[in-house]
Structure formats: C-alpha cells, structure tokens
C-alpha cells in the first residue's frame, strides 16, 4: 500500500504537488515549455485513454487496456528520451506513444482488431510494435541496443513492461545479456501493483528495483506518479546507457486505476476502496498543482492544452470509428518478403472467395 511515498522511492513532488526535494527540482534540465509540454501530453493521454475505453464500450474497439493512473510514469520516462532512442512497448503504452508522436489511429487499429502491432513505421519512428506476450519485447530491446552499440550510435533502447513481466524468463535473460554484453538499454517497469488479478506481493518476494543486483547494474525505485521524479531517473538512466553502456532497471511505483482491460471485471479481486485510496495520488492533479504553484498554468495555455487533448481524442474517434481492415489478401503480402508459390495459391483462393461473396451480397 502506498503511503505518501513508496518505500525507498525517489520523489520530487509530494502527492499534494509540493516540492519535497527542491534541490532535485532545481537541477532538472526542464524549462517552462518542457513542463507545459509534459502536462499537455498527460492531458492528451488521459483524454485519448478515456476515449478509447468509451470506444470499446461502443463496440468500436475489441478490447482496450487502460493506462489510467500511469500517465506520469509514461510521460516522465518518454520525455527523457532523444529522437534516436528506441522504444519497445508492451500493450499499455499509449502515453509513451503520445510523447513520441505515434499515429494514434493506427495504434488503435491494434485494439480494434484491424491490424497487428499498431505501429505503422516502427523503424522510422523508433517505436516497436505493440507486444502482447508478456516480457517478450525485453529481448528485442536488448538486441536493438546491442546493435546500436556495435554501430557506435549514441542511442539507447527503452523497454516498457509491468510488474508481472518480471517473473518471466525473458526478462531475466534480457537483463543478464544486457549486463554482460554492455547493452545501452533502460528497463522501465511500471509496477502498477497488479498483473490482471494477481497482486505484486504474489508475483515476487523481492522489491522489483532490487532485481538489478542480479545483473550487475543499478536499480532504482521511483514514485511513478511523480512525473518529475520519473523524468529525473529516466534521464539519468538514458545517459548511463548511452555514455557508459550500463543498463538501469527502473521500478516506477504506480497503480492501475482501471481494469486490466475492458474485458476484465476487477471487482472480482480488489475492492473499490483500494482503488479509491489511490485517487489521492493522481499524477495529473499532482503535476497540475506544481505548475499552478510555479505560475505556469495561465488560462490561455490551459484552455489550449485541454482543447488539444479533446481534439486528439476526437481525431482518434473519427479515425477509428467504422474503420475497415485491409482485406485478408493484403496480409498475405507481408508474410514473406516475396510471395512463395504455395502462398500465392492460397491468396488466390481468398481473393476468389471474397470477390464472389462481395458480388453475391
């Protein structure tokens, strides 16, 4: 249970928005525009996230895993990255996608069931396809980071995953590879307390950040609802990865305010009170108060930002509503780099049948 601060966690802002570590606050390399941009990204994320949940309720998305409550963890860490850094997301990273300028309509196609992956141009946008098999993307990040090191690039990979993901073999193998092969990678764990119905206490008997000990690189726990603290540790981890080729494991302690996904009934395994108790730690509210106290929330900005958020959500809705998948034969074209004969035969059948169907209709 979170108190005003998770044990051992780095914090800059208290839940009420007051600065608890003024020195750290001052040392941040963030100007007013950065702070505003971060807040704006949090608003956009919140709006898009709520819109996606609504779209699912209306049948426009097949299923959607809300990020509600985890906005600070995602925006704080994503904001610490450079263009050249490469993001490897799980399935709950819409906030990171917002910061990275990912096409959110294409992203929602994943959840609509009209395309896999959800990322139109992973290599160009440095944002890998959405990864559902828990922890599997950890290895891709490590591989990419190793490749970047071999190329002498000044860039790192950042991989996002949950508390549950730390139980998987792939998490371990990836961390161990990264430690010994000196891969520039940041392991960013959002400990949102739950893996579907399993609380983190039943997931592992050790604090997650301490697992870094097993791989010979630093681990750090941060208050995941404090966007500035998350930014700070992420920034340091990115620098350590790029400059020293030393990975970092970041545990951002946060809370999954929504159900695991829109298909989940969380009331079966946690109480309304538990969830409500985390309302006091809302990351947007906390950051808003800071910005207010620092005089950065003039009504002009606030109106614009809120309008932007609404507009983004509306854009997602407009883009995804009723959207059609490419026809099945289109998927055949991307199984191999060239179409082998045996597949061409099958593709022809698909075209024939769907054309007939179309004509029959």
């Amino acid at each position, binding site marked *: 249970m979170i108190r005003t601060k998770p044990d051992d966690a780095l914090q800059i802002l208290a839940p009420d928005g007051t600065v608890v570590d003024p020195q750290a606050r001052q040392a941040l390399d963030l100007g007013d525009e950065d702070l505003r941009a971060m807040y704006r990204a949090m608003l956009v994320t919140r709006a898009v996230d709520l819109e996606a949940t609504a779209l699912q309720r209306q049948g426009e998305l097949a299923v959607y895993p809300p990020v509600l409550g985890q906005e600070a963890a995602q925006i704080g860490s994503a904001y610490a990255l450079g263009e050249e850094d490469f993001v490897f997301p799980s399935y709950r990273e819409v906030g990171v996608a917002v910061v990275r300028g990912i096409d959110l309509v294409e992203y929602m196609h994943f959840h609509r069931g009209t395309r*896999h992956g959800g990322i139109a141009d992973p290599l160009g946008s440095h944002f890998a396809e959405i990864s559902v098999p828990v922890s599997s993307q950890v290895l891709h990040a490590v591989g990419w980071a190793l490749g970047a090191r071999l190329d002498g690039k000044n860039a790192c990979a950042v991989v996002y995953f949950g508390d549950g993901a730390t139980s998987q073999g792939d998490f371990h193998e990836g961390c161990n590879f990264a430690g010994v092969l000196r891969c520039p990678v940041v392991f960013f764990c959002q400990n949102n307390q739950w893996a579907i119905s*399993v609380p983190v206490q039943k997931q592992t008997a050790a604090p997650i950040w301490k697992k870094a000990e097993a791989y010979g690189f630093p681990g750090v726990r941060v208050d995941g609802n404090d966007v500035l603290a998350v930014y700070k540790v992420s920034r340091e981890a990115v620098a350590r990865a790029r400059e020293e080729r030393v990975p970092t494991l970041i545990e951002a302690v946060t809370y999954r305010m929504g159900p695991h996904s829109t298909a*989940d009934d969380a009331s079966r395994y946690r109480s309304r009170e538990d969830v409500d108790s985390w309302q006091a730690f809302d990351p947007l509210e906390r950051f808003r108060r800071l910005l207010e106290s620092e005089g950065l929330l003039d009504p002009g900005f606030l109106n614009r930002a809120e309008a932007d958020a609404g507009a983004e959500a509306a854009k997602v809705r407009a883009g995804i509503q009723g959207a059609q998948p490419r026809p099945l034969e289109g*998927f055949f074209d991307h199984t191999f780099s060239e179409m082998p004969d045996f*597949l061409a035969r*099958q593709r022809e059948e698909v075209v024939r*049948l769907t054309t007939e*169907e179309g004509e029959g209709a």
Partner: protein
Amino acid sequence: MPEVTMVQALNEALRFAMGEDDRVLVLGEDVGKLGGVFRITDRIQAEFGEARVFDTPLAESAIAGVSLGLAMAGWRPVAEMQFDAFSYPALDQVISHVAKYRFRSVGAVDVPVVIRIPCGGGIGAAEHHSESPEAYYVHTSGLKVAIPSTPLDAFNLLVRSIRDPDPVIFLEPKSRYWSKESGELSPDGLPFGRARTVREGSHATLVAWGGMVARCLQAANAAAEDGVEVEVLDLRTLVPLDIEGLANAARKTGRIVVVHEAPMTAGFGAEVVARIVEDAFEYLEAPVLRVTGYDIPYPPAKVEEHYLPSVDRILIALEKVLSF
C-alpha cells in the same frame, strides 16, 4: 440437467475431479479469485482452498516444470495456460520433460499432469490469442492430446484426463466455450481414441475436432439441402487417434475432407490424410482434401472470418471430392 455451457461443464469437471481425488491441484495465472479469464475455475478456490487452487507468478515455463515436480511429489496438477500463444514459453519444459519423464525414467515416474489451453480463433480476440497449436503437441511423443467440441465431451474428457497417469494437453476451443448442451454430467468413462460420429452420411465424410466440428455440421446441413448426405466425425482426442474410425470413414464414403483452424502446412490435417492413405487407400474414391487456416500468422480479428474455414470453403471441397 438443464443446459450447460462448455465453460460450466469444464468448471464442473474440475470440481468433480477435485472432489473425487484430493491430490488434484489447480494452478495457473489468475485461476484463483478471478476464476480465470474465461471463468473455468470460477469459485473453485473458494470451494477447495488456496492450498489446492492457487495463482502462480506470470511464467509459463515454470507452470509446466513446477507441475512436473508436483507430480513427482505425488500430486495431480491441472495447470492452466491463459491463452494458446502463451503456452509457447512452456514448450521446452513440455517437450523435454513433461512428455518424456516417464520414458526418461524407464517407467518409474507417472506424470499425471494436465495442461489446459484455451485455443483457436473466432472470438474476435487480439493478436496471439487465437492460435491453434495442436500440431506442436501432437508431434511430441509422450503426450496425449484431447480437444472436446461439446460441453458434455468437455466434462467427460477433462475428468478422464485428470485421472490419466500420463500428461494430457487439454485444448479448449474458445469459440465453443459458450455453446450449450443438456445432459447428465456424470463421467461415463469416455475412453481416449474414440471418435464420435456427429452426423451420419453416406456420400462423403468431414473430419474435424474442437471448434471446427460445429462448422462442419453447418456445412453438412447445407449439403443436405442439396441431397448430399455428409458424415461428420469428431476426433475428440488427437493422441491417441481413432485410426480405425478414420479407416472406416474411408470404407464407408471413400470421400473425405479434413477441416482445421491451424495453418495447413504440417497441420494435424496432414496426419489425418496420411493415416487414411496408409490404411485405406484402396477405398478412396477421391483425394483426401484439407480445408484449413492459411499459411500465414493468424490475422487480425476483423478479417478472421475469411481466414478460418467457412461453410463455403468446406462445401467447395466437398464438391471437389464428390465430383472427382
């Protein structure tokens, strides 16, 4: 007994098995309070306690390997993999140990492990949630593989799988989870390796299992409107396979189509064809054809209806074998 869904039948089977044998355990991700994402283990933990029904950490290889260890300690674990594609991290443990431990120990160790895997497509699910992995398991010597197509079969086969001293991969076709059937839920000792004739017919035979049995029945009914009587055979267990039943089908109609959701290449349909060819070639009036998923990864849900064998595709194949 009123109608039950396959979900309820499976839930009852677990209850029944846990009641008749207190060495039976249930483990997996979210099988406790949540009752599993499909509610197969609904209220089982409340009834049998947290010692016998427990959530595991999120690690499928461990779920399989730990289950083997539990079996060595004299327990009968029933492990749940949350979805088909999430059984893949456990493949190494399943192939190298669960399937082989009896053999490796020259018969000294029983392996009464059941691994339940919801499988197949057709429910509009996300990527990695609609795979049909039966061929991987069937090709692994030492495993039995069961896949019911109806609630009553699901109950009977699961009870029997849990009693089995050998490891059973128990595949549950998600598209049939909410199908209903009425009948008595008492285990009738349904033995493995006996296919079920779902529908009699003399002109041609459709062979299927799991989710495709119902689809074949639809196709057979459609064919009947044109006066073609199609037999539908539900294999129920893929290992052991009802070889005799397949040969009989060849003898009876000589025209056979096998239908499955998994990709065609090296799918279990190929085995069905090869068996029939080996054992009953002389009775074949036409090539044994396959109607299957295509040889691409399972596509996004919104196009899955064109990927999965449709009634139309089955009818076209029937026409081919009938007019050969």
